[in-house]
């Protein structure tokens, strides 16, 4: 029984990371109807940046927040410089652009930080007061961080004028312009936030899996599955979806199919959701684009 609970807990921990990345994906999707295939590689790059700062002697949380800020700015810059020129092009063109970004970030990680596998520290010491045999310190801390991020995002979107403007820009860009919202900058803001959230995801998972340029490849896939499961236009659904996918992945891996087929689980999930219930659990809009 304990082993079952441990699997569930491990699933929640990785699920938290999926949830964060899924949140980032949905934020961009809501505003632009594009899926940012480069989200994982951007997160990996951010994590490397954090690693460099820590190596240079920065304290963990200093590096953490600096990385958040840098990632935010980076996300804004990418939207302005690379994504915006292709705004009105076909979806196919946009996917190609995102694949290009994926490749470039992956390459940057490799070129700047090399391919040696590195360890990334956790801010939650193993013997912290909240650690237990059931759930290790980093796991619980990571879930906590994730909940804080989700809560902060929710509060921002729900209770601040800027958050309201972002929502308006995503829902009805034409009308948003008519009330003076600079829609283009709202998109950039969305990208910045997504990049920062991705950075958090990277920094939470790195202690568990070791840091190398290909760290987020599989995670991105799970994040997509989570986003689809929760409803691709529903950020909170995506977060919940992340937890569900994480737990399911672990339980299936432990009890049903073994750990060899984990990525296949994601594939089956994705195709399955698209076939059976494309709007996911909580999504409202079923995309019936012809």
């Amino acid at each position, binding site marked *: 029984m304990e082993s079952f609970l441990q699997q569930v807990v491990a699933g929640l921990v990785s699920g938290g990371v999926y949830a964060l990345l899924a949140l980032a994906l949905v934020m961009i999707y809501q505003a632009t*109807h*594009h*899926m940012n*295939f480069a989200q994982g590689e951007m997160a990996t790059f951010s994590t490397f940046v954090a690693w460099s700062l820590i190596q240079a002697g920065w304290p963990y949380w200093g590096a953490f927040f600096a990385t958040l800020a840098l990632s935010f700015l980076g996300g804004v810059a990418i939207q302005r410089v*690379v994504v915006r*020129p*292709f705004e*009105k*092009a*076909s*979806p*196919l*063109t946009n*996917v*190609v*652009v995102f*694949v*290009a*970004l*994926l*490749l*470039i970030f*992956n*390459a*940057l*990680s*490799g*070129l700047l930080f090399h*391919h040696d596998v590195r360890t990334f520290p956790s801010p939650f010491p193993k013997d912290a007061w909240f650690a237990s045999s059931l759930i290790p310190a980093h796991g619980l801390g990571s879930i906590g961080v994730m909940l804080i991020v989700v809560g902060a995002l929710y509060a921002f979107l729900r209770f601040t004028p800027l958050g309201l403007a972002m929502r308006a820009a995503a829902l009805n860009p034409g009308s948003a312009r008519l009330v003076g919202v600079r829609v283009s900058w709202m998109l950039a803001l969305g990208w910045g936030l997504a990049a920062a959230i991705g950075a958090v995801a990277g920094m939470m998972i790195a202690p568990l899996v070791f840091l190398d*340029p290909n760290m987020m*490849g*599989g995670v991105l*896939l799970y994040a*997509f*599955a989570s986003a*689809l499961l929760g409803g691709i236009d529903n950020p909170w659904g995506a977060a919940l979806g992340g937890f569900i996918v994480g737990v399911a992945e672990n339980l299936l891996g432990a009890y049903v199919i*073994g750990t*060899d*087929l*984990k*990525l*296949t689980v*994601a*594939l089956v999930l*994705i*195709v399955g959701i*698209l*076939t059976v219930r*494309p709007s996911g659990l909580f999504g409202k809009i*079923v*995309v*019936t*684009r*012809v």
Partner: protein
Amino acid sequence: MNGMNSMNEPTSLAPALAVENAPPATATGGSLSVKAVALVVALAALPLALPDYFVFQATMLLMYAIAVLGLNILMGYNGQISIGHSAFFAIGAYCSAICMDRFGMPFWATLPLAAGASFAFGFLMGFPALRLGGIYLALATFALAMATPQLLKYKLIEAWTGGVQGIVVLKPESPFTSPVAGVQVSDDYWFYLLTLAVAVVLFWLASNLLRGRIGRALIAIRDHPVAASAMGINLPVVKSVTFGISAAYTGVAGALSAVAVGFVSPDSFPGFLSITLLVAAVVGGLGSVQGAFFGALFILLIPNFAEQISKSAPSAIYGVLLLVVMVLMPRGVAGALMSLWARVASPAAVPSDPTLQTKE
């Protein structure tokens, strides 16, 4: 127009959208013109003029051209995207390998099976996603590409796939043990001719289909889906069939690769191969059959060269190339060359290329 005030006028850089008209008459490999036949004969004789090593390269070039053509049909003509064609490449390869190794079938017999299996898989994968829109197809194929190596290693089907070791594939023997017209037809040369034959058939099929009604229907679906739908075209089915065909092409290429390389194994088909195919298709030129050749050249030359620079160089080069092509040469190398040719051939008659998008 002077004094034109504009606000956010769209610069449409979609590579595929540059193909407004049917491919121009300068396209090669079309109907059975004298030029085409001459080309084929020349290609068949080519290895005679080159050292042995090049036969292998030439075979690989043809094979990659078929693979990229498959993706080109999908992306260039139908405007869909697949980041997962490595899976179909693998399916074709494994299908052929298993049939030859486990069932002792001759190679040529495995080709239709490989095509059929890839088609079926492509159709089944495509259908749920294409009901919803191209971006979901991209997602589904992305998942497929990443899951493929794992699937191929799966213990339960190891009896068939050979697990991590894979399957060794033997090259079909040349039926000509003694020289023909003074020419020694080695196994390699024989296989090259086989590959050439397959390539010619597939390219001819593609070129003709795409120029005719079906091609126009595909383009109509891509550019005016609502109108096409209103005319009674069952969009998801047609799109899924197109995806299946595209998969079949790449599957056939995979089958050829099984023999050319000599074995199949799970790690030969990593997710990155899909990206390589995608980059090749875009750089070579979407929306023209010739683009597939340039894409094949790309695959033959660039990855090996890049890998020698550094482990990350391929990704960097691919990424930058993709962006450069999207901005400067939306129709890829093939398109750029065709524009150049048109301008050189009749400089006065050709207005500035109407398919290149300009800011008004």
